[in-house]
């Protein structure tokens, strides 16, 4: 099936800018400030990926999953949210957080393995973030169900808050995806679900995930309006996400958006992609790079001055380096933090085991309690 070539998926989708940055349908009315912020976010994410990859290569970070080449999807969709909304990301939506001012130093510290309590202690958040972000979900599709529950709460309370969540092409095979969209449909929940279809779920190509022609149409089974957009065109993603968010906020219920993109890089730094896909596939997609396309458009429109792309990259590299430096200052997490935040109250076992760990780390024998009254 031509349609299902990972190299050349169907281009029957909504697109504003073609790969050369030429306008092919009426551009949405977007303020210049927002256009610049969209661009900045994508570049920032790309450079953040580059930096953390180099840290991974040096052994400072154990593993990363890059958003490289897919930046337009979560940039354009998250930008459609408003203050007070909720976002439930998976692990390839770095730009979503960056758009809303997520702290890069905290992100790097987390990648370096710091416990959340340690990060909060040494790099504390100041004030409430404009959009609420959950921790990044690693198990797939379970975030969609939580996001729909979040949206159900707003519907029942009558609050005009929108909950957005992300999955990949592979995750649409999970039960949680269907259960979540079914609940969203039944309860008319203000939930917008974005499918970041990057053609590959580790080594398994999109055509092995489903026999449907598109991922978008899966939502039809749940009575959820759906749309397919060019995921490398940030204006297309932004416009359709904005419509979906607006509909949800007005009480119009959930939406599902398939954004067609491509994983330009390995699944994560433990992956070896040469085993399962050809390098020439990447060449086809490099020409569709979401940042190049948008940059061309913004330069053509005079939104960006000719010197700005280079200047911005230099500014962002410095910012990222400063964030990395701050993250490196965070001390290694105290092992005892592992006992924190399981239940609100202390328990006998927690205190007992904490004391055992403390003794062990002092070089003392932790197994000397034969009465339950504490270490001897």
């Amino acid at each position: 099936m031509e349609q299902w070539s990972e190299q050349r998926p169907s281009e029957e989708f909504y697109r504003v800018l073609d790969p050369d940055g030429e306008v092919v349908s009426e551009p949405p009315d977007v303020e210049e400030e927002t256009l610049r912020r969209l661009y900045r976010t994508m570049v920032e994410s790309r450079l953040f990926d580059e930096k953390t990859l180099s840290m991974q290569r040096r052994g400072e970070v154990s593993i990363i999953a890059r958003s490289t080449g897919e930046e337009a999807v979560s940039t354009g969709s998250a930008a459609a949210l408003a203050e007070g909304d909720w976002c439930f990301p998976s692990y390839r939506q770095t730009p979503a957080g960056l758009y809303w001012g997520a702290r890069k130093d905290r992100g790097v510290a987390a990648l370096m393995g710091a416990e959340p309590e340690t990060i909060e202690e040494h790099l504390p958040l100041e004030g409430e973030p404009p959009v609420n972000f959950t921790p990044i979900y690693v198990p797939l599709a379970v975030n969609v169900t939580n996001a729909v529950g979040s949206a159900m709460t707003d519907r029942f309370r009558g609050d005009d808050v929108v909950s957005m969540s992300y999955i990949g092409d592979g995750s649409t095979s999970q039960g949680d995806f269907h259960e979540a969209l079914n609940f969203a449909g039944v309860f008319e929940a203000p939930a917008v679900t974005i499918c970041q279809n990057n053609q590959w779920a580790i080594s398994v190509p999109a055509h092995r995930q489903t026999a449907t022609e598109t991922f978008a149409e899966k939502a039809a089974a749940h009575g959820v309006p759906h749309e397919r957009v060019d995921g490398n065109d940030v204006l297309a993603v932004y416009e359709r996400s904005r419509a979906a968010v607006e509909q949800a906020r007005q009480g119009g219920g959930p939406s599902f958006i398939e954004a067609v993109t491509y994983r330009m890089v390995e699944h994560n730094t433990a992956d070896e992609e040469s085993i399962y896909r050809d390098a020439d596939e990447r060449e086809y997609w490099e020409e569709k790079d979401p940042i190049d396309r948008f940059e061309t458009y913004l330069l053509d429109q005079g939104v960006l001055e000719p010197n700005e792309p280079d200047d911005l990259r230099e500014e962002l590299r410095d910012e990222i380096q400063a964030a990395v430096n701050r993250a490196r200052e965070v001390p290694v997490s105290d092992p005892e933090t592992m006992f924190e935040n399981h239940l609100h109250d202390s328990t006998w076992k927690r205190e007992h085991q904490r004391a055992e760990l403390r003794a062990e780390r002092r070089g003392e024998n932790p197994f000397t309690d034969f009465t339950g009254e504490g270490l001897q």
Partner: protein
Amino acid sequence: MTSQVAPDEGQATEEMNMVTAVNETLRQEMDRDESVRLMGYDVGPIGGVYRATEGLIEDFGEDRVIDTPLSENGILGTAVGMAMRGSRIVPEIQFMGFFYPAFGQFMYTLVKMYERSGGALEVPMTVRMPYSGGIKSSEYHSESTETFLVHTPGCRVVVPSTPAETKGLLAASIRNDDPVFFLEPKKIYRVGTESVPTEDYTLPLDQARYVRRGEDITVYAWGAMVRHAKTAADAVDADVEIVDLRTLSPLDVETILESVKKTGRAVVLHEARRTLGLGAEISALINEYALDHLHAPIKRATGYDVHFPGHQTEDAYMPDEQRAQYAIEAVMDYEF
């Protein structure tokens, strides 16, 4: 600690069985706090297959008593999202044996959200599940698989044994900010009534209670097994102490050890399969911290390591007063 629910003189009480206690508590908590919502399959007009939510949708509306699609994982997964946003959500899983499709949400989000968010996102949820056997329902409706829950950090597990206990423990569970699994032993849903205080009240979620005091042997039990422990205690020629654990997680280790250090003998009575049932943990705790006090090995009077059997053989599987009595007598007769 000893914490019997004994109405004070002159205090208003009502005769309730366990189901009416659940129903009344849900009603009081929903009246008390508008963020409390119920959800689940059949919880609406029919009031649940055991009628525990009967009449509540009429009084609180379908935005607070939410009949859901038939999907346990969908129920638990959306409930987590609702709880993260401040709904004090009380999902019902129709039978504990139907819980397993929800295991993904349980392991990935329900027990981990608070920890993964560094304490920033709470999941104030009470998952009600009718559990255990003894009413000839059927194999998938009768299991006691609390071990899965107790083995997992980040949640509480509570099992009431009387109507008055049910009211105080359920109210405390709903008001607690941790995820709580509230396992309702359906065999004693409608077995007898007792005077339950009309006013709302809570019981602690980390303390066992002494059902009766004794000097010779301790029987640890919970839920429907507490009744069998009492009957057996009356039948044997020994001074039996009975500890109703009430909260299986966190365990009240202090009371467990306090009792056995006094009596020197212990029997654990539970419906769940024996291997890695909670009896194994209690036995291990006593071994680690009270071995010096023992006059006899610990015995576990439990279900067998089999799948829950069908109607005709159910009684042979279930621990009862006879099995409890045998275990007590064997331990009492033992000499080192």
